[in-house]
């Protein structure tokens, strides 16, 4: 047993580190590290830099731009990317719809969509959740009915992240209302410009605009936009969710945040001394670092175990990563709030989406502390809430 990486792995890590720091613009990475919103152009620009290097979709099949990396390489790659503040390639493209099309799509779909998804020429959004179908996704009601050469879609999706930027949406629709819940669902692709699709913004508590409602009113999409077989959409959705295994812990993101917290705690004074010298604060920081180290090793154990797992098959241990990873990311946002204290209270100037243009007050680094704390409550809710992850572990690992 050895916790150290091999020389080749270290060389790979260094190569990734250098690439991220030298090729992805510092201004974009700084925004990510400071918790500020990125524009659509910045996200696209950054993904294209990765794609030009062949690194936007390393986990895809080789034929579609994948790299055949080992699970350890994928882990190192993500960790470096997160620590450097590189915006992750758009998950809807590279972790969700891409792998599903690569595995189950027709040749025509692969050819048409995969290269454009990798290069973010098409921006995809995920139309799964509905007002009545959150944790209980299989109860979704948006329906698609075949009419000649078209599917006619009626219904509503919600919480659709960044639909305002999207060119395409992949959605789960009910195609057999008579079948058992999970068995009458299909996976369909729709061009967002199709008549009858309407996007309505939802503002989140931090003032940002990252989610939307998407309405479908007699939306006609070509029959060939069905992925795989009709009524098999639930299997594809499970495959999609099972693909996201180790990235979700976002250990690198928490490492980067903790580094920032340490730096800022040198600048902020308490009782006339730098906060970083305060024993209670240091102990709180240490407690989070201990848990993060544990999670990192747990994650590496899951990574090592990956080799024995079939692709696209959910590994229930990844639920540990989701639970602990989200809790620790949230803990770092609370530490950051502790660091800036009352200076977190004034609303920042021109924080995208809040619609004001008064200049702000107070230290600039304080401006994102509270919005980040508020916004990051979401990560224990989406992608299968932490309660649902508990249910998965209880069933699949503990055998209840």
């Amino acid at each position, binding site marked *: 047993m050895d916790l150290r990486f091999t020389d080749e792995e270290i060389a790979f890590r260094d190569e990734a580190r250098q690439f991220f720091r030298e090729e992805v613009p510092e201004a974009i990475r700084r925004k990510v590290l400071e918790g500020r919103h990125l524009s659509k152009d910045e996200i696209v620009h950054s993904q294209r830099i990765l794609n030009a290097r062949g690194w936007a979709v390393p986990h895809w099949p080789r034929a579609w731009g994948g790299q055949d990396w080992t699970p350890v390489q994928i882990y190192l790659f993500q960790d470096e990317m997160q620590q450097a503040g590189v915006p992750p390639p758009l998950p809807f493209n590279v972790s969700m719809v891409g792998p599903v099309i690569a595995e189950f799509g027709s040749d025509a779909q692969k050819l048409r969509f995969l290269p454009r998804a990798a290069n973010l020429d098409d921006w995809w959004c995920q139309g799964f*959740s509905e007002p*009545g179908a*959150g*944790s*209980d996704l299989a*109860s979704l009601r948006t329906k698609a009915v075949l009419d000649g050469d078209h599917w006619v879609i009626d219904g509503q999706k*919600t*919480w659709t992240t960044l639909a305002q930027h999207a060119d395409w949406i992949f959605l789960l629709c009910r195609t057999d209302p008579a079948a058992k819940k999970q068995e009458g669902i299909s996976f369909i692709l729709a061009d967002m410009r199709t008549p009858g699709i309407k996007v309505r913004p*939802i*503002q*989140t*508590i931090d*003032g940002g605009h990252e*989610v939307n409602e998407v309405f479908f009113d007699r939306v006609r999409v070509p029959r060939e936009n069905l992925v795989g077989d009709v009524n098999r959409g639930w299997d594809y959705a499970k495959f999609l969710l099972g693909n996201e295994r180790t990235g979700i812990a976002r250990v690198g993101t928490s490492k980067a945040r903790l580094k920032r917290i340490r730096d800022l705690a040198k600048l*902020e*004074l*308490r*009782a*006339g001394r730098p906060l970083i010298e305060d024993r*209670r*604060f240091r102990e*709180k920081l240490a407690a989070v670092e201990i848990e993060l180290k544990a999670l990192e090793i747990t994650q590496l154990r899951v990574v090592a175990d990956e080799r024995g797992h079939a692709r696209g098959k959910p590994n229930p241990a990844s639920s540990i990563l989701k639970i602990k990873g989200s809790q620790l990311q*949230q803990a770092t946002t*609370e530490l950051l*709030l*502790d660091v800036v*204290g*009352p*200076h*977190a*209270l*004034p*609303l920042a*100037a021109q924080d995208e989406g809040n619609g*004001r243009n*008064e*200049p*702000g*007050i*107070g*230290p600039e680094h304080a401006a994102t502390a*509270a*919005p980040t*704390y*508020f*916004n990051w*409550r*979401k990560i*224990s*809710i*989406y992608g299968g*809430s*932490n*309660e649902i992850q*508990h249910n998965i572990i209880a069933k699949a690992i503990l055998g209840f």
Partner: protein
Amino acid sequence: MDFDLNDDQRLLRDSVDRLIADRYDFEARRRFTAEPEGWSRANWVRFAEQGWLGLPFTEASGGFGGGAIEIALVMEAFGRGLVVEPYLASILLAGRLLEEAGEAALVRRIAEGELLGAFAHLERHSGWDLEDVATKARPRGDTWHLTGTKCVVLHGDCADVLLVTARTAGAQRDRDGIGVFLITPDAPGLTRHGVPTQDAQRVAEITMSDTPARQLAFAGDALATLERVRDQAIAALCAEAVGVMEQMHATTVDYLKTRHQFGRAIGEFQVLQHRAVDMYVALEQARSMALFATLMAAEADSPRRRAAISAAKVQIGRSGRLIGQEAIQLHGGIAMTIEYKVGHYFKRMTAIEEMFGNADTHLEQVATAESIL
């Protein structure tokens, strides 16, 4: 021992509760925060008519001689309604300081709602320590002149009088040499810059450069007076926090009973019931400590008073964080939207946690004081 309210207190509670229930629902509050000053002058007039603005002041200065209990009743209801008017800033901080300084004429106008005050203490690196003051007061001619910057001054943008801490002598963290000065915002050399806060209140940054000011005269030590007024304000804030937590908890329990997933109300999942129960336990612990703070707010033995107030602030901070985070989590996505009320309570709770020192700061106070038991 007696936890009951007397008749007058019951009347007061009923009238505040009624006004908040009738006139301060979530929609109404949205309108108030959209007004130019970020709060409603009409509400202020109404509060004055009800006598709430004069509540803490003695009858001699135009008040109603209410104590910490009366204040707590008002503040708890304000917490339930997420009231945005400058009650804490103008009445409980500025008004009370003016009263301690024997400024009866000004207090009377504040109690009538005709004059607004704000308390400007916090600096970039002071934290909430009242003795940590870098702003300088220098005598010239027969007035003082202040130079320095005050941050996050609650409702400092609409105030007609600013009560500013400044140092007449000593080093930045000396307990001696601190004065409280009265400045009007049109004074030369003063600029102020108001912005909304995360929780839809208003704050200002105030910069003074050789700004003429009048020093307030207190019967005793200025710092001791400041500490007493601050402690009373914290007790009031704890009561407000209880109102905030109560709403978050009640809204969550309601939601669990009505939201259906997997063919049943999600409240039927026992694990969620237990989480709601833990929130409830935290709420009741907070309520008890807010009561402790209220009953200790007038304690003359200042170390005992300060330890009690700090203990309450710790409990409020911890219960508030748990209840706030759980309220969001148990709602799921809906609580992340600005159109749903729980997020607004969560944000107010977060702001309360960061005001006058967070739970860590106050834990330190309790740990270094005589046992509160």
